[in-house]
């Protein structure tokens, strides 16, 4: 990455009272697709854009956690260079392009790679309609997987009474890893292996979720953006039309949920 990168750095901005903090600093601007966006010092491009109500596609970033910078969906062109918006600090005068056919085409390709690398079978998946990956595919108008499927041989861990993991659908965003470690204080998940052998593993003697002190109330049980970590017995309990992304695209939901969490 670049010297602007703040990947793996602790959460960059969390002014206790955002209103005051903003006033205390003079407004500085960068441009996003030709329109000005105000930012405060330390904010990433993604954070500043989101705060200004401007959507930049992203998948592994989460407002409550430091950037992970792994999915690359958020990559923008800033002063001609490709940079991850989730882990690059905003700078005065930066000219950022995001919503362009070229960048969206690359994002679509990344999504297609994610789809073929795992076993993402939307019509049979209970996360359908709630899934960030699927919603992004709709947002970016991905119409098919395009590449040959890898059909990896992955399993399901149903050993826990309340939560199950379908490894077929894990996209290695490490949100569960981060949540279990940083919020729940349990260190239940980790990514292990390299390249195509990379996989999520569970920190117990047997490697089974049922042998950990994981709970359905844990933050880590409620953060997976795809259908990999799911509560048991919920299944298809929400009718079509009432699921998060049925009527509202992720570009809108993602800005609104940040608004709501403020």
């Amino acid at each position, binding site marked *: 990455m670049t010297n602007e990168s703040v990947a793996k750095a602790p959460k960059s901005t969390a002014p206790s009272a955002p209103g005051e903090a903003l006033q205390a600093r003079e407004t500085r601007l960068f441009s996003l697709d030709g329109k000005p966006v105000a930012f405060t010092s330390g904010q990433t491009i993604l954070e500043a854009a989101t705060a200004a109500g401007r959507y930049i596609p992203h998948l592994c970033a989460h407002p409550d956690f430091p950037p992970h910078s792994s999915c690359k969906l958020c990559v923008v062109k800033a002063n001609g260079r490709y940079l991850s918006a989730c882990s690059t600090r905003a700078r005065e005068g930066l000219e950022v392009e995001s919503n362009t056919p070229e960048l969206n085409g690359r994002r*679509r390709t990344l999504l297609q790679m994610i789809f073929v690398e795992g*076993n993402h079978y939307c019509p*049979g998946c*209970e996360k359908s309609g709630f899934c960030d990956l699927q919603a992004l595919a709709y947002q970016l108008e991905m*119409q098919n997987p395009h590449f040959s*499927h890898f059909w990896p041989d992955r399993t399901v861990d*149903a*050993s826990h009474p309340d939560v199950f993991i379908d490894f077929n659908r894990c996209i290695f965003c490490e949100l569960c890893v981060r949540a279990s470690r940083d919020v729940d204080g349990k260190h239940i998940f980790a990514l292990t292996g390299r390249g195509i052998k990379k996989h999520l593993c569970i920190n117990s003697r047997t490697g089974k979720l049922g042998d950990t002190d994981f709970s359905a109330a844990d933050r880590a049980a409620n953060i997976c953006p795809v259908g990999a970590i799911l509560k048991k017995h919920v299944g*298809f309990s929400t009718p079509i*039309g009432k699921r998060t992304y049925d009527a509202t695209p992720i570009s809108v939901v993602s800005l609104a949920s940040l608004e709501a969490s403020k």
Partner: protein
Amino acid sequence: MSFALETASHPENLKRIAIDPVSRVEGHGKVTILLDDNNHVHQVRLHIVEFRGFERFIQGRPYWEVPVVVQRLCGICPVSHHLAGSKALDWVVGAPQISPTAEKMRRLMHFGQVLQSHAVHFFHLASPDLLFGFDAEVGKRNILNVAAEYPDIARQGVLLRKYGQEVIRLTAGKKVHGISSVPGGIHKSLNKEEIAFLKQDIGQMIDWSVGAVELCKRLYYSNLPLYENFARCESNLLSLVRPDGALELYDGLLRARDSKRKIIFDKVDNRDYHKVITEEVKSWSYMKFPHITALGREIGWYKVGPLARVQNCDFIDTPLAEEMRQQFMDTAKPVNHATLAYHWARMIEVVHCAEKIRDMLDDPDLQGNDLLRQGKRASEGIGIIEAPRGTLFHHYHVGDDDLVTMCNLIVSTTSNNQPMNEAIRSVAREYLDGERVTEGLLNHIEVAIRAYDPCLSCATHALGQMPLQVELVNTDGTVIDTRTRGADFI
């Protein structure tokens, strides 16, 4: 079409074609005709790509996923799998008795499904054969030509199908692959507007379906020797019936009659299906060969579907359909085994479905809020339903960890396999001329298979023409002639 990951440098420029990640197995229906030493038809085998792989695919999946995932089994009647899976898993969540709202929603969905599937089958697939004759040019035997020459019939077919799809959409959430039926009940009911919407056209649907029955009857009597004898196949009959003997499509008890209409077994609880039905495996097919255990493998095979149901029941509990059933039964001496009578029986069921839908729409339970039930968790569930093509069995074992450990399905095409073989054999005996598979033979085999409406890709995709291969094999196993016809996608 898909591309190896590393070779596509500018994927954004390439044409995109929507592909379902797990595409259904497609293929030809393949018929092998085995000749004896005198070059007479000895045996006929219909080979169908079957679902055993699917049963393994379900194993290891959480049970609540099953009613949705199994819908991928069949492109033409996914709702039947959705409901049979749900019914089986009602037992697993300890709620074999679901709420009245849930049961009525599911029934309504099922009536919509049977209505639309039968409409497609009769109007889109079969009516061209029946109206233009089996030997009419292939290019002529399709729905477009029906639309040109019999515009009213074609239009009614299209709109009946559409009405059925609307029922499915409102009850299941989507026209295809809905998700509303869940183990223990349903997750939605109908609102006033939806009921009013469905009420608008139901009277018209009943009239049209009555017209379709009249058409079938007329065609039948217009050429009685052909209709009675073409691809005729005498067999036992199997279906669900209501405890009081009425025609039942969603939930009933198993009954079988022999070819003379004598009861073989009756009032068999769904959970005891394996006591009365045995599934045999044969080396040359992936398909299983179910038969009535008491009669044994040789004579125990049976037919399912409209022709079996309409004759297996004692009555139909809606007046128009019952009147038409009685007229139909005039042809049964004591059982109508004519393959082409399937169409007539099928349309009687459409009348029944339409009458049922009309009656149900007045039921306040469809607007209820009591949707889900739950009880003591069990490890096994069996659900049997009358799918458009016949009795459909779903059987699951579920482990303590909620994953499916065993899945056994008997689809109607599997049950009808032997009757179809017999029907084709009868056609081959009559129309095989010398050592060649002629166009005429192919056409007649096609018409016979289509009457059973098997879940072949040909039945689902090819409107007007089914992808079919017929091969002629002599005693030493040599293929002496083949004729293939590809799918004709309209």
